[in-house]
């Protein structure tokens, strides 16, 4: 359904008054490729600055890429306009991280969730809008009738995120780009939202591009995952394989650093350094300054993402060593 090939998103930065200074850019996404099948959920995992959100925004057509292609059912997302674009917006929806900011504070819930219905002429009368919105709210577990005319500030974080979900499914989309939909929610409500998203995926044959920094959430939601670092995909494959046996040293570091219930285990790759600026990306493998296994080749040559076994791909010169 979705095919991303060698995608680049570079944002220019103007810092110097010197006209002859070299043009610099933030390399938010720096050549990534992946596919997403119908009714599949893929998790895009990475730390801040990894380019996962930018990738999602390109898919939702909120950011224009500077190179490469992203195709949705054969059509290039970059070239969509007019009625094609309108159709695309109906089929692909986005959910944002912050339920406090992604809802209009001055619009009643019925109007927020009803907006896409009006835009796409799916309802004709006010009464019809109310009916459709209540049934949508019902589907996301907000069934008490008085919520229709409430405002976002009267709802809890979990309820707001459910409203965002209702709004996203209003147009019967095929793909939802969900950018950290649960990272601002407390544990006790997070589980409910994740459950809901999974149920909806089955009921409505939805695909999700699920963007998260949390490996445990990625593992729960996605059958496949892509681990990103500084604009590149480092590891791509079935979630179960990657989380049980991470191959890329960065994925190893990430998994090891993720807290687990129980006393802390010792040993492993350790937690070294911090993600560098995406303006001055290290040459060669961009992880080499932090990698405990880096050798000369890692400093000079960019390792391509290559298939190792089955559907598991890794971008590391020494990948075989870690299998």
């Amino acid at each position: 359904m979705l095919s991303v090939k060698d995608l680049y998103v570079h944002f220019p930065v103007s810092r110097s008054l010197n006209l002859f200074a070299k043009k610099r850019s933030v390399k938010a996404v720096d050549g990534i490729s992946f596919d997403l099948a119908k009714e599949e959920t893929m998790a895009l995992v990475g730390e801040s600055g990894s380019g996962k959100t930018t990738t999602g925004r390109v898919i939702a057509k909120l950011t224009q890429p500077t190179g490469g292609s992203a195709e949705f059912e054969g059509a290039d997302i970059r070239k969509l306009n007019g009625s094609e674009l309108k159709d695309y917006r109906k089929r692909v929806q986005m959910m944002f991280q912050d339920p406090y900011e992604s809802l209009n504070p001055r619009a009643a819930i019925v109007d927020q969730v009803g907006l896409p219905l009006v835009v796409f002429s799916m309802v004709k009368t006010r009464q019809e809008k109310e009916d459709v919105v209540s049934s949508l709210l019902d589907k996301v577990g907000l069934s008490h009738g008085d919520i229709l005319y409430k405002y976002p500030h009267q709802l809890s974080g979990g309820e707001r995120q459910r409203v965002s979900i209702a709004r996203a499914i209003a147009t019967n989309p095929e793909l939802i780009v969900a950018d950290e939909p649960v990272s601002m929610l407390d544990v006790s409500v997070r589980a409910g939202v994740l459950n809901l998203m999974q149920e909806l995926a089955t009921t409505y044959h939805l695909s999700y591009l699920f963007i998260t920094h949390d490996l445990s959430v990625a593992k729960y939601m996605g059958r496949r995952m892509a681990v990103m670092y500084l604009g590149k995909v480092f590891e791509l494959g079935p979630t179960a394989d990657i989380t049980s046996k991470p191959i890329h040293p960065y994925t190893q570091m990430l998994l090891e650093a993720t807290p687990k219930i129980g006393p802390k285990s010792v040993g492993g790759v350790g937690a070294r350094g911090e993600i560098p600026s995406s303006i001055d990306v290290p040459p060669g493998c961009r992880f080499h300054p932090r990698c405990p296994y880096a050798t000369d080749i890692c400093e000079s040559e960019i390792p391509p993402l290559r298939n190792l076994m089955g559907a598991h791909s890794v971008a590391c010169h020494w990948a075989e060593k870690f299998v």
Partner: protein
Amino acid sequence: MSSEPIVDVLNLRVSFWARRGEVKAVDDVSLQVKKGEIMGLAGESGCGKSTTGLALMRLIKPPGEIKDGRIIFDGGTDILSLSEEELRSFRWRKISMVFQGAMNSLNPVMTIGSQIAEAISAHESVEGKDMEERVAKLLEQVGVDASRSKDYPHEFSGGMRQRAVIAMALALSPELLIADEPTTALDVVVQRQILDLMIDMQKRLNLSMMFITHDLVALSEFSDKVSIMYAGRIAEVAPTSELYESPLHPYTQGLLESLQGIATPGKKLWSIPGAPPDLAAVPKGCRFRPRCRYAFDRCVVEEPELLSPKEGRSVACHLVNK
């Protein structure tokens, strides 16, 4: 670890006055941190955990007010009865705090070194070379190269800024350190580095620590004891290993089920229905009752007290304390 408490909080009440009325952020909380121990204070947003921390520092400002209770430090002083004058020599020297988001509130036009120096000179008369050495030592202690003391905050990465904040909190060698979500805004790997650093410091300096967090998973790795807060009250207190093996309060059970469930994909997650109550209109009886799967008639009318059903465990639940 000795069994003497470094701080003993008794029946603390803190309220904020808002337009919608009195918000009882901390509502009759008693807790204890023993010497040399890491006590984890965990709960969800708005449960009163940060307010409790701030009350220990006597940093509740209007419209907030400490209404009642005692905070006994090291078996002697009641922090709540100290005069402003006494408080100045007490705060930061005896108890200090790493505030939530402090790494983003460093002064952007002052070097890191001079900000640490300022924190010291407000309490001690150290000058010139001595001060430089002291700052250098503090930075080295938290894993920042001393040569970076002349850098400004924007030249530091997020992790380094958090290290600097920790150095500042430790500048006057406090006995108790309150850390409020010290790793929350950080990336996973950096979070791990900061956690490792704090635990290492705690051991080396034999600090007592109150670690305030929403992250029960992280807490399981290093705390000695965990206190779970819900809607302004303590729901349960237990030694860490026991809490995770056999949680007694239905709220703790629900939280842990959600957390453990996420590790097993394919299964439906257990989630606690509903949301925490508005602290300006707390339900009568047990405040967790509207969300509790075991609630019975007594829970509707009577607020459960924090009692000890067995050695070392405390829980506020009618079902357990029958």
